[in-house]
């Protein structure tokens, strides 16, 4: 009984450690995603690298249903 408990306990521990590792990785990835998707960066890239600009209001046609 005690042996089984220990065995299961170590399994729980192992899984928890894996969980922690995934948590850490997730946080790291979220951090990266956020860095890359920073609005300032995107705005700058869109304007300078892709040559995009906001359409003039005269260039917008709105269709009302």
């Amino acid at each position, binding site marked *: 009984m005690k042996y089984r408990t220990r065995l299961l306990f170590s399994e729980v521990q192992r899984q928890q450690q894996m969980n922690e590792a995934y*948590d850490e990785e997730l*946080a790291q990835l979220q951090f990266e995603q956020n860095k890359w998707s920073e609005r300032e960066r995107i705005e700058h890239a869109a304007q300078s690298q892709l040559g995009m600009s906001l359409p003039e*209001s005269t260039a917008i046609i709105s269709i009302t249903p």
Partner: protein
Amino acid sequence: MLIIRPKQASPDYSLRWRLLLGLLLTSLTVLIGRAVYLQALDKQFLKHQGDLRHVGIMPIPAHRGRITDRHGELLAVSSPVKSIWVNPKEFLKAQIPAEKIRQLAAQVGLSRDEVMSRIGNDEERAFVYLKRKMNPEQADTATGLGIPGVYAEREYKRYYPTGEVAAHLVGLTNIDGKGQEGMELAHDGSLRGIDGAWRAVRDGKRRIIERTEELRQPIPGRDLALSIDARLQYIAHRELKSAVAQHRARSGSLVMLDSRTGEVLIMANQPAFNPNSRGKVSPDVSRNRAMTDLFEPGSTMKPFAVACALELGLAQPNTIVDTNGGTMYIGRNVVKDVHSYGVMDVAKILQKSSNVGTSKIALKVPPRKFWVFYHNFGFGQPLETGYPGEARGRLSDYHGWSAFEQATLSFGYGVSTSPLQLARAYTVLANDGVMPMVNLTRLDQGGSAHRILSTKTASSIRGMLERVVSKEGTALQAAVPGYRVAGKTGTVKKLGARGYTSSRYHAVFAGMAPASNPRLVMVVMIDEPSAGDYYGGVVAAPVFSRVMQEALRVLNIAPDAPLIAARQDSPA
């Protein structure tokens, strides 16, 4: 022969025997009794004492809930980190070679001397943090050096992905993960969760030798969805920052409300701070001015004074008022206009922002009714958002009012409000007379609202405010191409040590769009612009225009005005 041996009196040992037996029995009973006492009766106490010495309850930190914007974009998130702590008792006893300490120091990013001074030389201490909240990998390498007395502890670090953009509203936590400011503090209870615990067995030197069981699982905190829209928040942050810099202002605030639901879509302040760098942030920078700071709203109050007279039938939009060449005497005091406008109707009084005209209209209203009206618009009334440090504003009691005071109240002096309170009052005009409760968190079903004004008066005032945003009005620069905009400027003299100053101002603009059926209400307040311009229509209105234009586009709100060429060359 009979030998008679003298009868030897055999000594009677039976008494000794009994005595010995008795003694043995007694001691046995005492021992058994004691054993029973210890085992059965005193067990609880002794076990507890033993546990105190050998079993430790270690906390498992709960994951703090995330804070997101209304669309789920992350504004604050806790990521797992590790803290290195040292047991000086063990550490000092172990006589660690200098080389090892140098390696440890390198891992935690401190110098050898710093490490040693943190640990100190008190052999009785059993706990000292060496480095908190570090990269988990580095922490593992540090504990992997095998130095006795060096341990790692799991913690969470709060990270704010949007940085300074929404810093004021979101707030901060302290190093122990407790909410300190802003929404982090307001909703600390539900964000925090409940820490778990595990039981550890220690040896005589208080080292952890066995991790026995988990007593309870940590319960993670609940996520919190704010009402703000991160896309709009960013636009506002950018525009406000550049305006404050351009006009060399002391500070600035911008709030936008959804006029129907009362949800706060934007709350931006300048100066801002980066919540991720844990330097010293002075309250002057970290304050959420849009909610905590009060100012006199000046001319932006005029629509309410006029609405009051209109609602009570004491004036009509086309009522003619003579502004007496721009000067009006009330007792010993004088109310002045910048220019003399002569005879005007009510609509034109708002358009030109005449103090004399507004005073004349306001003085038709009995003080009590006037007070009730302002009160109902929420001036001097708490916002009830639960936000820590939320300002309530001030509206003095009508009993002490003189006619002059009522006149000054009509053009926004003698009453103080936070930018958010002013925006709330404008939702009444935008929302056909109904004021929704202000919400800082996303509403998933309709909130409560109160009717303050009749639909007729609200739409009539809105029509007048639309004329403010025109060539003849004071706020042409608030115009948004393709949309009808209604709003009011304010250029408010600041109160100095000796009364009102003549060189320091608040530049304010409060407005809404699209005016035909308003969806968005915005207040822009720039404190002490000092680069030359200081008029609300020149300093605050352009910020309104730029932010509103992008907000209408982002939120996909249909234009309600034909594009007029004349409006094109207004600075967009």
